């Protein structure tokens, strides 16, 4: 048997996984859950089957993998008539490369009949040549550096290498491999491609291990740490940025188009394999959600490549989230306990049509105590709030036989928590120029100042200075200062997009999130007149709604100094994640009455942290029922926190159904906290839960194979006195809340 490409020592990999499995390590549990799903439901988890076949070498696993490859090959010709393959071919190139790799692995195991092997090999090669070699050739070289070109060039290089006995393969290899170094080197030194967290995490980051390892195996040398032309990009910097996008609440920064999303892990595992930085290990071992089957490069093998790269014996000391600053891109100020997180972003936006790299000069992201406080992202199809008059575009290169008209307003200044001038919401650049300059940053003092004057000056030629300064103060709250000065008077607006639940406030604006975290945002300097507009359908994720808050002032020199004061109003008092009785409901035909009998007859005890089939040798079915008793503390208010992504959740307490519908959308990203009725305080309650877990990477309602994830706890209300006094005088900020008083020196920015 040949060594499978990308895996230098199969015996060592088998030993690593076996050892982790036997020792009950996290890596072993992940491997076990992958293997179980590949065996019990191979048609639902096709992307797992080739790896499982490779590791086990068992006949049934091999047949499952061969079927998956055959099924993929059968889709290729029908895909030729799809808008996707014809106009978005890069999305098909990356998965095609991996299916070809998996076919190659199996060929190395000598499991194909010669005739079938020849037929599939020729089909894969021909499909690559007529679709992805074609697609790559009109991606301008060297100008085009993005996730699409990475996908195309990588796929041509990989197939070219794998099947190098073919002249067509050699031709594809020549052009593909030539371009790969400049695709890494074409990235900025920050490692951020400008395309937002989704494309960074789902395509650019995951492509790095494949590209680096391919270059090292074919060209020799170390390509991970090498800084490359033309823009001094570096594979390690890209991996570092992937890790930096990971916020302490388990979500990715809502950076640019798609908003909050779940992190992927394979790129982080690769960085842990190549780097001595313990933070990658921390993300893998302590922070990652291993129940989610996140797509990477348009395929569901993130868990597979995580297992391949995950370093053996990686249980290092706990590392911490650290503040960071990238001069071209942004800075994150993070409290030592990782409870408070601020990011100020100033990455370049795309001139004219900012559909990917949005216009966010000094936009702010705030998260506290696990709860996002600000929002960003994309609106749902019914939300028209960002359809500005000057941001319509009609294109004919994206669909079959028709044009597509859309509004890109959400990518412009009006769609972000930034300064706006003279109500120009469609604010954007119209030519290429440096849009921002980092003025000062101190990670020790947790402060940053960045100037973004150029992007305002292009339209408002009298602009002198537009700057924002952010500070994390004494690990407890933020000060955010805005300065916008012009030679002529303008109407200057400070815009914020906040979570949608507004609560009473004497000054500024206050919101309380569904996770019980409050944010008081009030001006210590600058006028406190604001307009608050609820936006339904923005973002399309999280709450599916937000508050658009506009503070305005008129003048030549406009200033605000904001106090942003977060408070957690709930505290965890009891871990109730263990000792749940679980019953599968494969036919989805049980109800709360009939399930009671089954709890007595066939229940299995599990922890309610991931689906039972990811923990134990249990059926891979979608619907599950759970039951346990919980002692609810005597309190003034109490909540039951459940795992995220419990699809179609139903909850009964002492036989009474509890309405959880308000959590449905939000719990795709966050663990829901369900308020318990007062009559249960101080009592023991009988809790029954029914929910669906994603059980298929492609099937209807399969939720892409993602299961629920979290840790059930009971919370009670805790004291949250709010901002009782806040003032700015004599270059000093004074804030009082409860028994605490903070006195902070703060000199306003100079023009």
């Amino acid at each position, binding site marked *: 048997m040949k060594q499978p490409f990308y895996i230098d020592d199969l015996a060592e990999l088998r030993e690593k996984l076996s050892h982790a499995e036997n020792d009950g390590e996290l890596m072993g549990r992940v491997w076990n859950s992958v293997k179980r799903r590949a065996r019990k439901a191979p*048609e639902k988890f*096709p992307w797992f089957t080739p790896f499982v076949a490779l590791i086990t070498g068992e006949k049934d696993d091999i047949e499952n993998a061969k079927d*998956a490859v055959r*099924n*993929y090959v*059968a*889709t290729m*010709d*029908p*895909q*030729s*008539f*799809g*808008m*996707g*393959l*014809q*106009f*978005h071919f890069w*999305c*098909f190139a*990356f*998965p*095609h490369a*991996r*299916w070809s790799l998996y076919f190659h692995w199996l060929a190395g195991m000598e499991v194909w009949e010669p005739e079938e092997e020849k037929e599939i090999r*020729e089909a894969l*090669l*021909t499909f690559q*040549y*007529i679709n992805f070699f*074609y*697609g790559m*050739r*009109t*991606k*301008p070289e*060297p*100008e*085009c550096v993005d996730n699409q070109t990475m996908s195309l060039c990588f796929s041509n290089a990989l197939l070219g290498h794998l099947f190098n006995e*073919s*002249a*067509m393969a*050699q*031709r594809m290899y020549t052009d593909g491999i030539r371009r790969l170094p400049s695709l890494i080197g074409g990235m900025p030194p920050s490692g951020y491609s400008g395309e937002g967290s989704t494309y960074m995490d789902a395509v650019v980051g995951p492509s790095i291990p494949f590209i680096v390892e391919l270059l090292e195996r074919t060209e020799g040398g170390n390509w991970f740490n090498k800084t490359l032309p*033309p823009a001094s990009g570096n594979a390690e910097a890209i991996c570092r940025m992937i890790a930096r996008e990971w916020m302490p609440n388990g979500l990715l920064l809502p950076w640019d188009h798609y908003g909050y999303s779940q992190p992927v892990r394979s790129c982080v595992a690769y960085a842990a394999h190549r780097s001595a930085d313990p933070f990658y290990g921390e993300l893998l071992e302590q922070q990652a959600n291993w129940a989610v089957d996140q797509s990477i490069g*348009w*395929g569901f093998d993130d868990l597979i490549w995580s297992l391949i790269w995950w370093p053996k014996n990686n249980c290092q000391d706990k590392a911490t989230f650290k503040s960071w600053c990238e001069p071209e891109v942004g800075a994150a100020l993070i409290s030592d306990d990782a409870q408070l997180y601020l990011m100020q972003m100033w990455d370049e936006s795309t001139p004219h049509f900012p559909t990917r790299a949005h216009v966010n000069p000094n936009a702010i992201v705030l998260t506290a105590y696990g709860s996002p406080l600000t929002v960003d992202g994309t609106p749902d199809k019914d939300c028209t709030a960002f359809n500005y008059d000057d941001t319509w575009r009609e*294109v*004919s*290169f994206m*669909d*079959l*036989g*028709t044009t597509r008209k859309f509004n890109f307003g959400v990518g412009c200044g009006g769609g972000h928590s930034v300064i706006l001038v003279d109500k120009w919401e469609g604010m954007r650049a119209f030519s290429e120029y440096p849009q921002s300059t980092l003025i000062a940053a101190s990670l020790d003092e947790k402060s940053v100042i960045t100037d973004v004057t150029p992007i305002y000056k292009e339209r408002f030629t009298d602009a002198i200075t537009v700057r924002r300064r952010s500070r994390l103060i004494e690990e407890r709250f933020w000060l955010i200062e805005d300065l916008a000065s012009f030679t002529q008077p303008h109407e200057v607006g400070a815009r914020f997009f906040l979570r949608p639940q507004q609560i009473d406030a004497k000054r500024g604006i206050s919101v309380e999130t569904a996770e019980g975290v409050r944010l008081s945002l009030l001006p210590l300097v600058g006028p406190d007149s604001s307009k608050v507009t609820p936006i339904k359908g923005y973002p399309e994720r999280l709450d599916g709604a937000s508050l658009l808050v506009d503070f305005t002032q008129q003048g030549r020199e406009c200033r605000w100094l904001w106090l942003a004061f977060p408070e957690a109003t709930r505290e965890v008092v009891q871990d109730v994640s263990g000792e749940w009785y679980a019953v599968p409901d494969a036919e989805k035909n049980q109800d709360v009455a009939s399930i009671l009998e089954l709890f007595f007859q066939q229940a299995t005890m599990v922890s309610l942290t991931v689906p039972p089939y990811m923990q134990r040798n249990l059926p891979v079915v979608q619907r599950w029922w759970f039951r346990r008793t919980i002692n609810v503390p005597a309190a003034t208010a109490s909540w039951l926190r459940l795992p995220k992504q419990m699809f179609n959740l139903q909850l009964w307490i002492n036989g009474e159904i509890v309405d959880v519908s308000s959590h449905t959308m939000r719990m795709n990203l966050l663990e829901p906290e369900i308020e318990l009725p007062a009559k249960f305080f101080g009592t023991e309650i009988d809790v029954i839960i029914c929910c669906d877990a994603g059980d298929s990477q*492609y*099937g209807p309602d399969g939720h892409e194979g993602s299961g629920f994830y979290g840790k059930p706890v009971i919370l009670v209300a805790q004291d949250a006195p709010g901002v009782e006094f806040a003032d700015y005088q004599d270059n000093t900020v004074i804030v009082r809340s409860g028994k605490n008083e903070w006195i902070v020196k703060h000199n306003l920015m100079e023009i």
Partner: protein
Amino acid sequence: MNTVFEKMEYCAAHAASNDSVTLANIIAFLRDDNWRVRYAAAIALGDRRDPQAMPALVELFESESKEPLFSQPELHGGIHAGSTESLTLEFPEGTTDELKEIWRRRGRVLQAACLAIGNIGQADAAALGYLHRFALEQSYDYGIRAAACKALAQLAIPESLPILELAAKDEEWCTKTEAKKGLPGYTP
């Protein structure tokens, strides 16, 4: 050399040759019934950079551009990229196998021929006329417009400048980028 794959392989295998026999064979493949072979032949001729291929490439432009390459309506059905789910499409009544082949190829052969002429580095009036037309033809997929612009930029013929100036305003980024590369003073 009987199968489509073998013919495509032949083209690629002789893309760096400079003998007249293989050149003649590859030029003959530009007229093959199967478009995949024509596509592979055009790529190989571009790699060979032999001006003797020019008449056959112009002939290919003429025959390909008469076909309803971009006439496919949107069809019902579809699956994710990389999926292993079975896929059944509903074609309009009367869709022939021949038309399906045209829809499969769209502008692939044209793109390869445009790039081939750019690589050859010479274009007669007929070839240039086609490249000018393709560079601006909005009813074609952008891959053809971009390829035509790339070829025109490589050819660097002054009479193409007005075409490239217009194409530099194309709504599609790759097309306009390739066009800009043919304009004076361009720097990446």
